[in-house]
């Protein structure tokens, strides 16, 4: 029975179905339980959280990744699956600590002050959540001070900054300087992204990493996590 539930969770991650309302990829799936309902059921039946996460959610995402690479899946499919995993993680979050499982880490993301562009940052958020990170999204047009305060309070492993304007990319450097001044720079790794920024720019302002798109954002975070451990 538990194996069957995990299979179903994995299958619904592949289908990208958050809840029973979602259609998924194949016909006739609407109405049947989606990932969130299945995770609740699995928890009730005592399926170990570790198995739900590794075999169900991550297992499903691995297959989605392969389908994407093979050209069978498109970005909207990938995002739907990532959203399903993210929603499942929301349910599991409070129980993870209790069962002694460490999450992959927390990421705070924000689009810097005076910049309203948030589509890219939102996609990065969905994909990071889909990869199993806890993401706290501060929003767009965020004051440097608000970001610094959040880092102090939440103690995230990562801070992700987004800027789409050449006039606002300098704000990223402000954030880093301010974190240094507040003795918070070593708290976590800082990654940046957005159309006008680059790897070179990241290094020049003292950030730890740069991602050209949502997939690279996940890859950079994973690579930096691996360096740590």
């Amino acid at each position: 029975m538990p194996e069957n539930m995990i299979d179903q969770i994995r299958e619904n991650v592949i289908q990208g179905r958050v809840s029973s309302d979602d259609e998924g990829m194949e016909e006739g799936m609407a109405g049947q339980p989606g990932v969130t309902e299945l995770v609740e059921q699995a928890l009730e039946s005592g399926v170990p959280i570790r198995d739900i996460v590794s075999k169900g959610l991550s297992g499903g995402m691995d297959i989605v990744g392969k389908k994407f690479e093979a050209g069978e899946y498109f970005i909207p499919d990938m995002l739907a699956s990532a959203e399903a995993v993210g929603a499942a993680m929301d349910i599991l979050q409070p129980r993870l600590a209790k069962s002694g499982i460490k999450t992959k880490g927390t990421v705070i993301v924000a689009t810097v002050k005076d910049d309203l562009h948030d589509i890219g940052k939102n996609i990065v958020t969905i994909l990071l959540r889909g990869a199993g990170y806890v993401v706290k999204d501060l929003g767009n047009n965020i004051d440097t001070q608000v970001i610094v305060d959040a880092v102090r309070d939440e103690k995230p492993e990562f801070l992700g900054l987004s800027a789409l304007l050449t006039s606002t990319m300098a704000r990223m450097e402000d954030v880093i300087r301010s974190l240094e001044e507040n003795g918070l720079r070593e708290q976590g790794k800082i990654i940046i992204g957005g159309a006008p920024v680059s790897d070179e720019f990241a290094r020049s302002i003292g950030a730890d990493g740069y991602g050209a798109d949502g997939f690279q954002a996940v890859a950079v975070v994973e690579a930096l996590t691996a360096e740590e451990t």
Partner: protein
Amino acid sequence: MAREGIHVERPYERLNKDQVELIHQASMEILQDPGLISFNEEAVNIFHSHGAEVESLGGDHRSWHVKLPEQLMTSALKSVPKTVTLGARNPDNSLVMNGDQPKVYLITGSETNIWLDVEFPEYVHKSDSSKKIRVPEFKPRRGMVEDLCQSARVCEHLEMVDGFIRNVNIQDRDITPENKDVNKFFASLNNNTKHFMSGLTSLDQLDNVVRMAELIAGGKKQLADNPIISFITCLVKSPLQFVDDTTSTFIEICRRGLPVAVSSSPQAGTTAPIKEAGIMAQINAEVLAGIALGQLVKPGVPLLYGSVPVRARMDTLSDSYGAVETSQYNIDCVQMARFYGIPNYSTSGVCDSKIPGQQSSIERLFSDIVVAMSGPQYLHCAFGLLECNSVFSLLQAVLDDAHFKMIKHFLKQPRVDQTEIESVLKQIRSVVDTPQKLYISHIRPVLRSGEISGLYPFEGSGETDQVFELAFDRMEELLAKPVQHIDEETTARIFAEVPGILPRLNVYERGS
């Protein structure tokens, strides 16, 4: 089952109702004064027996002045079928056309003398040998029967090609005026299961060609029900002359009841007035006169209103298909044919450019889009044709197919109805309520339904334009794909009963 075609719900039209009526009236007047000159005696006799005034003209060539009263025209045009069905070896490839209905089928054509081979030599940057590019090199040569086979094969697999007009003039040493027709028909029909249309080189070959088609279709009656072949005849020589031999051919085809496109190709500036009203009044008169003749020969014979108007180039006075006026005339003709309810054979995509490239892309796409929008039923859209129809390039045909996919997508009707509005309102309300405010998850249901158009299929990676290289790969892929040949038994019967087909075209005896 017929092919889908492109439904154009609200066709683009240039002429208003009054202008259509004026052109119609002017054409009727032209047919009475100055009337036609016919070099074909049989046509003269047919018109005469139906009330036309005829007068023999002197000179080296026997010719007659024919004045067609409006009443003759009106009554002859009454029997023109509004619906024409063009059959196909594979009946799912049939074309059903209704003169009132702007549904577009895309057809290849015309007979080109030159076949363009392409190679991709590599060029190395003079001062940096690590920089290399591959640039297409086009090599023209005479078209051969094997080229026609190849073209038929690729066109079989090109999704947007609805019907095949032979597009290579076969000029092998062993092709003679006597065996040319049977070979072009066999090469095309054996490598393509779509509808096949062609001109006839020699009237003597008509019955051989028809016999071949009967054998393939399964008999006389089967061919009548599923006319897998049709003909195109340019019996008119502008201005207003019926030529002798093609008119005879036309009359004979009509007698056999097979579908024919009656076409006229006046050139504005030289063989027709340079003014739109003038070329329109004239071409309409020319085509209608041909159609009337066909109906008088055999009432009810399926005919297409064939219009290939073109403007003259001002530098050489040869055809300029790339001229924007050429598209205007074509669109006007589509509208005139619809006025009479006769399915229209129209032209687009012909370019002045000699090789595939920017000029050819711009010229052909321009007319392909606007003429397709006007809703001709049978659009000769020059797949692969260059230099005013004298050169054929398979590579260009592959490109044209991709571009017509875009045009077909563009011409889809908007889906706006109560159910759709309700569903999008629900979507908007639910997305606006989420923190991320993105509609991405709603893309998925439409992503695979074909509702969203695809990426440009020949988009390269990096900074270089790789359109030709990628289209070439696609062309090679299509050439390697098998086609369904005519079965062995039928092939044997065709070779036994139809004289003159080159033995090397028999796919069942090649190896032996």
